[in-house]
């Protein structure tokens, strides 16, 4: 079975400060890890993914994520937060064997204060 934990329901950060949204996972085999963002009344938008290679992955809108195999984590980061980054963020995983469907975490709401 595969699972994702996002331990924080909400993260608050001031505009211009760095942000981190945490994610840990459990999966059989090698993990494929994804981050998605959901704005109100809109679908999930793909931000970035880790498949293999460099542990630091860069994605859309200045976001990046760091894969840590020993800690089974894939935290989302951004050096300088914008008010427009305020949204719901989901981490998702699937293994390189078995089911093709993604398993999502419960989401973390990011609030960036001006």
């Amino acid at each position: 079975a595969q699972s994702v934990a996002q331990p924080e329901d909400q993260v608050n950060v001031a505009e211009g400060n760095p942000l981190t949204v945490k994610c840990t996972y459990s999966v059989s085999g090698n993990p494929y890890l994804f981050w998605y963002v959901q704005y109100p009344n809109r679908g999930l938008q793909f931000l970035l993914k880790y498949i293999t290679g460099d542990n630091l992955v860069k994605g859309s809108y200045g976001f990046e994520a760091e894969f840590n195999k020993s800690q089974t984590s894939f935290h989302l980061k951004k050096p300088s937060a914008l008010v427009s980054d305020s949204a719901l963020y989901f981490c998702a995983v699937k293994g390189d064997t078995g089911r093709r469907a993604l398993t999502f975490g419960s989401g973390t709401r990011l609030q960036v204060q001006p």
Partner: protein
Amino acid sequence: GAGVSQTPSNKVTEKGKYVELRCDPISGHTALYWYRQSLGQGPEFLIYFQGTGAADDSGLPNDRFFAVRPEGSVSTLKIQRTERGDSAMYLCASSLSGTYNEQFFGPGTRLTVL
């Protein structure tokens, strides 16, 4: 190019009625997924199509739920004898074949069962 589209955007029905939800994937995407998202939770997998066939339907909650993709493009999720607990956002996603490809999501259909 055009993204994943879903119709209707909202569907209100009465308990016991039959509903159909439609998904138009991105052209050329052979993989298609249905997920269900309840308020405050991450999406949960329902069914996965590779081409015309359902490759994994392990997420369907019971036999009231059924999905088809007869020509390998448009898919319809069908729910018989709807119950109030079926109320949720139903999301469709498509991707290129290959385990590591990201899924692109549609805006969803919000189903409300009265």
